[in-house]
């Protein structure tokens, strides 16, 4: 194996590892506090990408608004005072013909994902919290919801694939004779920063502390005065925003389509089990390990053998460490 091949494998392994880390850390947070798996997590990735595209791209919201802008500027003279007030609005709408751009699209998409996550929680999870077999029921409801949303998006946005603009344009970075796109570099750098922020959020903020408290001992959390039923949706929102960020990154690399989250979700589940259920450090280490294993086996064997190698590794790890790489003891 040449040096440049190794560099290429590491780069692409880090990129997929980053995406898995963002997704799996959200899954792990929700599992930690609610003891439930959210199978609509992949859909939230997709929602992140679609809403980012819809807001930022000229083919999205801006295009839909254009007729309205035209109507306002054309007719405002007939509307008297109302028209004078509305005219600047119409002009502004016409001026955003080329979309709102990623600067607005990315943060808004993340916020929107948080809201979508909250709605998913209220509709698909909350009714079953505290009921017997809630974990199994929620698997079914979130799978059903995911399928519903996927097909809804297909109906609304049509079958044509979308693509997000690259955040960073320009010549790829040369590392050891391997060209790495700037978008990829951005993902590799931004993910650890995000995870570090997540770490400080969990360690220092009141909500973060409460989320960890509920994950470690929900009865004791109630007894110190934490409103656990409020922490559940808040955890869900944080997790959804992380999924949204993953979707925005994915949307800059590959095509955006309604099922884009399904494959990464499967990998993220593998990562969560591999790293150790409920362990955030394990999940993050697991993400990068899985990313690197996947990419190197795709290079050494072939793309089709990559999943085989991946699951073989998973099985091996679980044989020797049944609770995953960093899974805790049975409580």
């Amino acid at each position, binding site marked *: 194996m040449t040096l440049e091949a190794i560099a290429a494998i590491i780069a692409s392994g880090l990129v997929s590892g980053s995406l898995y880390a963002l997704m799996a850390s959200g899954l792990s947070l929700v599992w930690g506090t609610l003891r439930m798996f959210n199978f609509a997590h992949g859909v939230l990735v997709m929602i992140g990408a679609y809403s980012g595209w819809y807001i930022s791209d000229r083919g999205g919201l801006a295009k839909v608004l254009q007729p309205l802008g035209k109507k306002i500027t054309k007719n405002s003279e007939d509307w008297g005072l109302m028209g004078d007030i509305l005219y600047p609005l119409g002009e502004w709408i016409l001026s955003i013909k080329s979309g709102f751009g990623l600067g607005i699209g990315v943060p808004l998409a993340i916020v929107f994902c948080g809201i979508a996550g909250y709605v998913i929680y209220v509709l698909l999870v909350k009714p079953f919290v505290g009921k017997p077999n809630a974990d199994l029921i929620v698997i079914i409801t979130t799978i059903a919801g995911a399928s519903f949303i996927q097909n809804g998006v297909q109906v609304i946005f049509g079958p044509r694939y979308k693509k997000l603009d690259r955040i960073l344009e320009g010549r790829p970075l040369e590392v050891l004779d391997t060209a790495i796109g700037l978008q990829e570099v951005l993902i590799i750098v931004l993910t650890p920063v995000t995870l570090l922020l997540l770490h400080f959020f969990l360690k220092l903020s009141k909500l973060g502390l*409460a989320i960890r408290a509920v994950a*470690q001992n929900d009865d004791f959390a109630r*007894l*110190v005065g934490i409103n656990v039923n409020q922490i559940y949706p808040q955890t869900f929102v944080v997790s959804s925003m992380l999924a949204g960020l993953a979707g925005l990154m994915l949307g800059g690399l590959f095509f955006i389509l309604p099922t884009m989250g399904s494959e990464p979700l499967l990998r993220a589940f593998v990562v969560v089990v591999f790293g150790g259920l409920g362990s955030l450090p394990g999940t993050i280490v697991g993400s990068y390990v899985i990313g690197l294993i996947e990419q190197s086996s795709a290079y050494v064997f072939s793309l089709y053998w990559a999943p085989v190698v991946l699951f073989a590794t998973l099985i091996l790890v679980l044989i020797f460490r049944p609770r995953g790489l960093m899974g805790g003891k049975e409580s």
Partner: protein
Amino acid sequence: MLFQVENLTSGYGKIDVVRSLSLHVDEGERVGLFGPNGHGKTTLLRTVSGLIPAKSGLVVFRGEDITGADPHKIVKKGLIHVPQGNQLFPEMTVQENLTLGTFAARTDKGKASNFEKVFALFPRLKERLSQRAQTLSGGERQMLAIGVGLMGMPELLILDEPSVGLAPIIKEELARAIGEIADSGVTMIVVDQDVELLLGICERLYLIEKGSVSLETTDVSQVNQAEILEMYFGKVT
């Protein structure tokens, strides 16, 4: 009267563990509950603090009916239930555990002085501040659990089996600390198997048997040890 339980019945599923139990605690009083295992003491506490719903009956705190209220609301009112010492946030440091004890507090005022109070009572916790709770010894864990309870500025502090599984010397240390807490004016209910410990702390004792109060005594010096032994182990022949 600060706290009152009236004809309370609760349990798990179809099984009643607490059966129309009544007791009361006056302001500033220290009351002990004892009785054999599996007779409903912990279930009573879990119902009082709102962790499990009551099937019937009333829990009244400061003249307010708190039956079936959310646990976090009950904590906010100043009724704090310290569960057995193995109930902590195991992967958090001593400091984080104590900080979470102030979660229900509306202001940060008095937070620092609360830390000082807890450290004065349990100097060992100060030494172990950055250590994870799961790495503490049993006695230290119990101290931490009580410390977390104190951080919430209780008006009624309920301790569940503070002495369970502890070495006699640590038990003594703990009993002294509990006595100091009571002397500082906190009303207290202490649940324990160790009647001697309760006799040292409390002014009044309830014996809980088969889910209800089978004996109440205000004159703790008159408690007949032989009688209690009989209740636990049956008649010795």
